[in-house]
């Protein structure tokens, strides 16, 4: 008996070892190293100096940079909310379709999901080009001045973020809606609820897991956006991701880049922790 | 040596802190259908898995045909299992499923083909041999699982709740088929079930298990008619319990007992329990007579007056619950004559309950909690 379970343990460790060690070496250790590196001092040329410091974090919270942090947060939250607002009706509609049409629409949603996102961003650059129809219409309607630009501002960054991550929000919501028993809505209606009330009190709570997944799928990559503000944003629409890349490639100041990375990690862990707390609270209320 | 074909000897098994099997010993004879019957969690499946080699006992030995097989790995034992949800290989056809064991054992192709053919015929599935498990009905999958196990010519076939996933009608049909297969192959069957009617109808012998121990081993009739413990009496069918002390010896076999809150009852005391001994009486509902008029009074017959509390008409019989002296007795009346001609017994009727003392049975062991197993409406 004893020999059997210890033999089992050895087999378990043997087949877990390759993946576990790979992830430890190439994920866990580098991540911890980044946090440690953020505490190392450096001179303005990016050379590493001996000792430890919190100077890098002081720089982050200086007035010039703090606005970037705020922008990253509000742009991400706003984009996530808009994505959810669009994906709920889409997920609802898809779940109610006949199987044949559902497959077609699903296919049409999955294709952009898989298309290289550089290309998808670039397509918007083309559309919003000053030479393009949309730009000309906007100028004609007086929405923007003739010398103005549709790209290189925060609005465009949000638009392209939504464009990029909307499929990521639709898919989990659709998956949840597909499992939803639509007879519940009929039951609610039968019990006197209006359509809107039934939707809000029956449908939404039942797909809450899908909503959470969708929110996480959009919010997390949004916070780490780098390419989108880089390609369609202007100097006033930089996000934390751009600062990381700047420090790594332009300023060549690794401790500063590491400090920004650590901040980004904290920004992601914070809402995740919040969601976890809310979940624990909700579970407690259920008892 | 027929009796000692498969022996479980002092088997114990713990899962964590829970004692699942507690020092169980019993023999299984060659060629019989032996059932392990008990509620879920009683340890019956674990015992079967120990026999299959899928679990190891903490203590004890399993001896098959004179050989100690306790330490043999599953693939080295001459036993095969029919799993609860059949565990058919979903990526293989019916034929490949059945041929899996022989192929693994390295039989030659000719022998495999002829054996597979034989078993497909036996279970009447020849026309489905190229189908996949998901294309089959529950009953068909069941038969494949049986054939897949039997083709290896096991000394013992282990069946783990094989009918649990089927509906009632199909279950009854499969029971008959299982019985037919057993008659044709003659392999020893070790059958695990929680369903008493399954066990009663198919078994030569039943071991009733509860909380890791065997409460009673016997033929289906022995277990039903002469349960030794309150658990067996309550788990197999319904019964009425009385608790009292022996108060008077009428003759060497007949005694009177005095329950604390019920008039004296005449019982058949073949265990020769002396006056003052605490006894527990179990009497099956169908052994009780119910009538609107007072039956012939023989001195030895127990007769009590009561009020009908509940009636369930079941076609071939009617179940009554009658209150008498604060006791709720359950009574089954079989309808052997045309019911509509009889004067019906109605709710709240005053009735006479009577029974022959020889129809009750004194238990060896009693636990109050076993009364929860009875179907008494409240």
């Amino acid at each position, binding site marked *: 008996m004893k020999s059997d379970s210890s033999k089992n343990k050895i087999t378990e460790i043997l087949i877990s070892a390759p993946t576990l060690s790979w992830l430890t070496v*190439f994920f866990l250790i580098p991540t911890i190293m980044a946090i440690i590196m953020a505490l190392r001092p450096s001179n303005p040329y990016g050379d590493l100096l001996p000792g430890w410091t919190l100077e890098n974090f002081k720089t982050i919270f200086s007035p010039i940079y703090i606005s970037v942090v705020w922008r990253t947060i509000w742009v991400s939250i706003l984009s996530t909310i808009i994505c959810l607002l669009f994906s709920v009706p*889409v997920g609802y509609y898809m779940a109610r379709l006949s199987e044949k049409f559902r497959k077609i629409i699903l296919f049409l949603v999955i*294709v952009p999901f898989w298309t*290289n*996102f*550089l290309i998808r961003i670039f397509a918007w650059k*083309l559309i919003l080009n000053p030479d393009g129809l949309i730009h000309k219409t906007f100028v004609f309607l007086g929405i923007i001045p003739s010398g103005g630009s549709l790209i290189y501002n925060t609005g465009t960054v949000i638009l392209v973020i939504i464009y990029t991550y909307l499929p990521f929000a639709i898919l989990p919501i659709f998956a949840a809606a597909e499992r939803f028993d639509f007879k519940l809505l009929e039951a609610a209606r039968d019990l006197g609820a209006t359509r809107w009330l039934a939707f809000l009190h029956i449908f939404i709570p039942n797909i809450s897991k899908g909503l959470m997944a969708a929110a996480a799928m959009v919010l997390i990559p949004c916070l780490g956006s780098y390419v989108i503000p880089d390609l369609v944003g202007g100097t006033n629409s930089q996000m934390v991701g751009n600062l990381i890349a700047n420090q790594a490639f332009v300023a060549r100041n690794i401790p500063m880049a590491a400090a920004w990375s650590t901040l980004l990690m904290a920004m992601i862990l914070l809402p995740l922790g919040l969601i976890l707390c809310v979940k624990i609270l909700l579970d407690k209320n259920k008892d | 040596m027929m009796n000692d074909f498969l022996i479980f000897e002092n088997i114990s098994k713990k899962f964590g802190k829970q004692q699942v099997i507690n020092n169980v010993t019993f023999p299984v004879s060659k060629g019989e259908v032996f059932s392990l019957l008990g509620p879920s969690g009683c340890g019956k499946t674990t015992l079967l898995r120990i026999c299959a080699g899928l679990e190891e006992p903490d203590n004890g030995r399993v001896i098959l045909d004179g050989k100690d097989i306790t330490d043999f790995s599953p693939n080295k034992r001459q036993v095969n299992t029919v799993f609860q949800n059949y565990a058919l290989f979903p990526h293989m056809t019916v034929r490949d499923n059945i041929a899996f064991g022989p192929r693994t054992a390295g039989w030659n192709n000719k022998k495999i083909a002829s054996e597979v053919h034989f078993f497909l015929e036996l279970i009447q599935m020849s026309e489905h041999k190229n189908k996949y498990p998901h294309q089959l009905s529950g009953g068909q999958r069941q038969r494949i699982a049986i054939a897949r196990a039997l083709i290896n010519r096991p000394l013992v076939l282990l069946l783990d709740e094989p009918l649990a996933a089927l509906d009632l009608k199909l279950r009854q049909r499969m029971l008959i088929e299982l019985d037919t297969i057993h008659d044709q192959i003659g392999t020893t069957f070790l059958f695990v079930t929680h369903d008493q009617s399954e066990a009663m109808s198919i078994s030569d012998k039943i071991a009733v298990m509860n909380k890791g121990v065997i409460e009673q081993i016997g033929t289906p009739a022995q277990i039903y008619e002469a349960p030794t413990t309150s658990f067996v009496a309550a788990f197999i069918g319904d019964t009425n319990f009385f608790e009292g002390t022996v108060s008077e010896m009428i003759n060497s076999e007949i005694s009177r007992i005095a329950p604390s809150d019920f008039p004296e009852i005449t019982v058949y005391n073949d265990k020769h329990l002396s006056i003052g001994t605490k006894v527990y009486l179990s009497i099956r509902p169908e052994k009780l007579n119910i009538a609107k008029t007072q039956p012939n009074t023989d001195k030895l017959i127990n007769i009590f007056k009561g009020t009908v509390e509940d009636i369930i008409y079941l076609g071939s019989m009617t179940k009554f619950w009658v209150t008498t002296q604060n006791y709720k007795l359950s009574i089954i009346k079989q309808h052997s004559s045309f019911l509509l001609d009889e004067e019906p017994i109605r709710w709240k009727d005053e009735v006479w309950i009577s029974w022959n003392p020889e129809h009750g049975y004194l238990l060896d062991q009693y636990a109050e909690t076993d009364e929860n197993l009875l179907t008494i409406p409240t």
Partner: protein
Amino acid sequence: MKYKSRFSKYVTWLVLFFFYLPMVVMTINSFNNSKYGITWKGFTLQWYIDMFNNPKILFTLMNSLIIGVTAMLVSMILGSLAAFCIHYYRTRLQLFHNNLILIQLGVPDILMGMSLLLFFISIHLKLGLLTIFFAHVTFCISYVTMVVLARLQNFDFSILEAAKDLGASWPVIIRKIILPLLSPGIIAGGLLAFTLSIDDFVITFFVTGPGSTTLPVYIYSMMKHGNPTVVNAISVFIFIATFILVFFTQKLTDTKKK
């Protein structure tokens, strides 16, 4: 049927229009004889000819394929192993294993790129194809694991016992039962890994070195500094390839369900 709301229908079609409008504009523009901008100046195939005449594209595509195939193979093995032990052994070690994979999935590309860059620099590993390979396997493992794990949800482990009971040894069980049953999941995971690897820009951008430019990195540099016209042509190709790939994977998973 009564409850099908028209509002959700309109939103869905609007969203699909929003998804495909840029693609259509880009496709049309790839035939536009205008060097900059999107005003129609006549039909041309010039940009496609340019694309095929650009040796750098073939070179970077080869790099992408080398990384994609090797990362796919290695992550298929590692991911399947991980999925199997996470599902089969429910121990504390596997809980850690599972959480490590989940966290890895949640980390934004830029963080992974940054920390890997830091790591490779500090162990003095020269940035190049090898470092890209390491990085790609790392993020692919999690995806393969998730796909295989999903497949394992429907995996009835009692058939392993049945096989053992019928006399099969572990090597036979792995070859005849586990691999055939899990192969659709493993292949799907591998396809996912390959696509993710071929598509990746951000992480690659951080750990790439001289001579190891992949196609997305090259496309990015063309977008920023080179000629956008060729980017249009490449994009159309990639878009079509994606379309076909998704179509076939959908078909594949569809038949497997039945």
